[in-house]
């Protein structure tokens, strides 16, 4: 425990969290809203980085897990009227089950094929949501009867602390024994198994952890915004944004993924005056970062360019 309090990272994070927690007193309601969404995205991205950066699994379908969590929670809430926490747990459970069903057979596949399966899973989910429109609201999306809060500052604090807790857990996991073994299986599966570690078991575990956090965050996002729709939680474009945020922020760092998400969503808002060009500019900047600083923003902050 002593080492934790001595680390610079801990103090920087603490200051950042304190500043973040006071934001409702000095930031406009509008930006609080933007940051609220960004924080949920941060959790999506961190969950993805645990898979990609640590276990070496390229999941092109983070929104399959997120969408299952979001729609699972939303449907239970609107159909059975159960309280939000129960719905959230149910959503996370759906994401976990879906994730295991997807990963169990798919983890046998190597190279690009695992990525392909995950991508196809998203397309399928998307189509099923459209087909079962009487449950899911189809392309328009569905409203949920309950929301976390109607007050923007309260919603903001919910999102912030949710993200902080997720970040602490995921970051802690990445630094734990499990994180060490995950990295070993991701880098050199044969060597890891020769050291006595079951590669499949650990990869599946990583997938499950990623599924639970993605599903939870998906559910939270739904109860913040009051709706679940394909465009906001399932579309491939959302998955793409998560991947880009992670690489932009710095892959294999967990915290970089969070920073990348906040930067991308904020930039999108700040550039709104450009009108339709804003996404263009954000993408161009992200592309430039990826080409010139492959270790991402956090990599630049930590090491400068020459260590990249």
């Amino acid at each position: 425990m002593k080492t934790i309090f001595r680390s610079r990272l801990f103090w920087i994070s603490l200051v950042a969290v304190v500043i973040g927690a006071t934001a409702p007193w000095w930031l406009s309601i509008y930006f609080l809203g933007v940051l609220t969404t960004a924080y949920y995205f941060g959790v999506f991205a961190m969950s993805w980085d645990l898979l990609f950066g640590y276990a070496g699994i390229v999941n092109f379908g983070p929104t399959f897990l997120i969408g299952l969590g979001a729609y699972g929670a939303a449907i239970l809430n609107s159909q059975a009227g159960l309280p939000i926490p129960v719905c959230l747990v149910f959503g996370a459970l759906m994401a976990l089950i879906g994730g295991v069903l997807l990963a169990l057979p798919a983890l046998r596949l190597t190279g690009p094929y695992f990525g392909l399966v995950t991508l196809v899973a998203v397309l399928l989910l998307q189509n099923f949501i459209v087909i079962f429109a009487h449950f899911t609201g189809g392309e328009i999306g569905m409203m949920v009867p309950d929301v976390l809060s109607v007050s923007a500052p309260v919603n903001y604090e919910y999102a912030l602390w949710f993200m902080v807790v997720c970040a602490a857990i995921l970051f802690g996991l990445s630094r734990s024994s499990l994180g060490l073994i995950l990295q070993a299986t991701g880098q050199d599966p044969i060597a890891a198994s020769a050291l006595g570690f079951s590669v499949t078991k650990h990869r599946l575990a990583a997938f499950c952890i990623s599924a639970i956090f993605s599903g939870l965050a998906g559910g939270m996002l739904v109860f913040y915004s009051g709706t679940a729709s394909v465009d906001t939680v399932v579309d491939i474009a959302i998955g793409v944004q998560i991947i880009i945020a992670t690489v932009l922020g710095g892959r294999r760092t967990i915290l970089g993924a969070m920073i990348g998400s906040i930067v991308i969503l904020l930039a999108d808002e700040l550039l709104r005056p450009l009108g339709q060009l804003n996404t263009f500019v954000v993408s161009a900047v992200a592309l430039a970062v990826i080409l010139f600083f492959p270790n991402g923003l956090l990599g630049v902050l930590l090491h400068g360019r020459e260590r990249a």
Partner: protein
Amino acid sequence: MIAIQILIDGFVISALYGLGAIGFTLIFGVSGVLNLAHGGIMLIAAMIGWFVANTYGFNPYGAAAMGVLAGLLAAYATYYVTVRPIQTSRTIPPDETEIFILTATLLWGVMIQEGLAYLFSDNPVTMRPLLPGVVNILGVRTPRNEVMIGVLCWVVIGLLWLLVNRTRLGKTLLAASNNPRALGLLGFELSRVYLLAWTIYGVLAGVAGVLLASFLGASPLGAGQLTASAFSIVVLGGLGSVSGSLIGAYIVGFMETITAYLISPELRPIPALVVLVLVVYVRPQGLLGRR
């Protein structure tokens, strides 16, 4: 009656899908690049073709030619802006170039899509048909344009086949997909071979984009969907296999058409996706792919 309708529509749509997908698979086969800006490149060709026809009054063929040219330039830009810098980068580890190229081409595709939407608005557009009028095929009134597009697709596919299998340049491409290292040892500059592949790819994507705009219409916001469909077809047929992609295109095209006519247009993409999932699980290398 409806059977013949399905046959005709399915044939043409599949041919168009195939044309769109073979360029995608060619680039993967020759240089191992999955170009996720693919839909964007097709749309550049489509939108430019439509734009010069509408604004400068080009005749349909002139407009189509301009569109194809635009597609070719877009392909070059993709290569030089995203793929090449990553392949030659010293800071990106070799085992991660794949994910970097995917991310970069994705971003590039988004830039193309947003750029097009900004310049031309995001309303769907349809190019004037290359041929006006309708013909009667076994009792089904079919637009001449549709017939023309089906034929054109196959002419282009045939030309590609001749190029790859009957010319020395084509053999070089085959050899590059087989063993790029050996090609270098035999005195071929790989960068030139790749450039050749991107040239062919640009033309194919350009033609596919223009024909798409003239048959089904095109909208800047459809870039992702186009990429995804080419991707699914290619995976179904086997990454890197041109004939596999054609078979994949026909399976997807016909399943979609049959579903749309006989069950419901809503369910159009579902059966093909289910087949895709099954194939990926049972035979991940695709129908004609080799591990």
